[in-house]
């Protein structure tokens, strides 16, 4: 099962690399959109989790 999972991840990695090479070469702004959107989502999510952490430290603080 672990080998299958590893193989699956390896295939996903290869497909991602091929996607990155092709789209990065042919359509740099499309590639930027994919990477940028993921980054925006992650930073927005991190901000929310940071707020949870701030709440835990000082539960009665103002927002």
């Amino acid at each position, binding site marked *: 099962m672990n080998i299958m999972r590893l193989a699956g991840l390896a295939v996903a990695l290869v497909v991602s690399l091929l996607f990155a090479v092709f789209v990065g070469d042919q359509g740099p702004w499309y590639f930027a959109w994919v990477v940028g959107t993921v980054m*925006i989502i992650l*930073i927005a*999510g991190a901000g929310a989790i940071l707020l949870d952490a701030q709440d835990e430290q000082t539960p009665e603080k103002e*927002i």
Partner: protein
Amino acid sequence: MELINPDVVDLSRFQFALTALYHFMFVPLTLGLTFMLAAMETVYVVTGRQIYKDMAQFWGKLFGINFAIGVATGITMEFEFGTNWSMYSRFFGDMFGTPLAIEGLMAFFMESTFVGLMFFGWDRLSRPAHLAITYLVALGSNLSALWILVANASMNMPEGAHFDPDTMRMQFDSVVKVIFNPDAQAKFVHTSVAGYVSAAMFVMGISAFYILRGQHKAFAARSFRMAALFGIISTVAVITLGDVLGRLDYEHQPTKIAAIEGLWHTSKPPFEPWLAFALPDDARQENHLEIGVPFVLTPLVAHSFDTPITGMTELEEQAGPHIASGIQALSALRRYGQGHDPADLAQFRAHEADMGFGFLAMRHAPGQDVTAISAAEMDSVVRQTEPDILPNVFVTFWSFRIMVFLSLWFFAVFALSAYVSLTNRLERNRLLLKLCMWSIPLPILATEFGWITAEAGRQPWTVFNRLPTFLSASSHGVGYMIFSLAGFALLYSTFIAAELFLMFKYARLGPDHGAHGAQGPHLTVAHDRKDAFSIASSLSS
């Protein structure tokens, strides 16, 4: 070829502009909110905290209102190409129809199928499966925009096609060139990310409303922070991609760039000012009341300090030889159509690149027939046609400036909001919260003016340098156009009124009221009792 009544052309343009601008009041929220929902649900899946599920469900409900009312408004535009722009569709349908068909088959189906699963699958799907569905909705709605913008870019920068003199239309050559057209890439990212800005301001503004009223504070604080961070990065990306689009226009649509900058005469680098204010006078080809910032225009447009930017007067003069060459192309094409003589075809090929300028000269040719222009009349026809290559400078200049000034405003509001939220001082900054609230409609306004800049700026062409707008419309009667225009205005205004009514209603009711799957006022936290206490206490305060 007979010219179409100019009133019908103007009414066709006005009808398309009206339906497109109405449609685009709904689109940005759909593009951006889906990814904001995905961000909220990602946090829910990662942390397991109920509040993020409530957030995804509440904002998802507002997205649903926008989606249900807004999506249909775009479909009419696809029919308008056939009803009101039949000459254009005949000439360019092979190119334009392909991305539209892909959009219908792929993006619409993908988007609408997964939207149903997203709304009704909360209790039927596992958390990761539902999250994947939400991402697919976001991807589907943005892919829908991608194909529309690929189609739009093929009009602005025709690549991957050639004109066939036997069929008299543009024919498809390369799908890769069409999809990876630089204008399509930049325009897609610019438009998609402008949708992110609209959604972020929407979420931030409504959250600010709750904070100002002391309602749903834990919910609002998290929504506000996520939206502020989402918005500030998106605004930077919008401005960056706007610069990329400007650079592309500088290289491929110099008349648009000159009109955007109100540049009647070739610039003198590096001093040439960027005009923050001016009143362009199209008739006299000059500006009134210029207020500019020196040394900014050249690096902004040309990305250098010593490159002159060609002004509209000089662009008109440069168009003269192209107009004369275009007239020869059309004359050769007419002869080739009658006799299929290879010599005529060869002559057409020699002037083919300027064919569009020949079409442009038709309005000034005797009997609108360029083949009837005598050698003595040629110079006069060319001179009369030259000013026709320019768009409406006043509209292009000001629509661009409104968009730019608004985007700078968004940058300031998002940056300040992110800072205040990260330092937990939101409640102390009531003025900022009010500004956020009143800024909700501004990103949508900015995208509308962005479209006006792009589309008014590329006039007089529907297909740039290939087919003029005045040759693209259908030959309807004026009465028919006024009747259908009034019908669209009435119908779409009803849609907007319904959307605003529902949005206001459900935004005022807040997340506690009947949210799909929401757990009433108990914004409990699944894994953390301390958090649950803090949220409950903040709710009751």
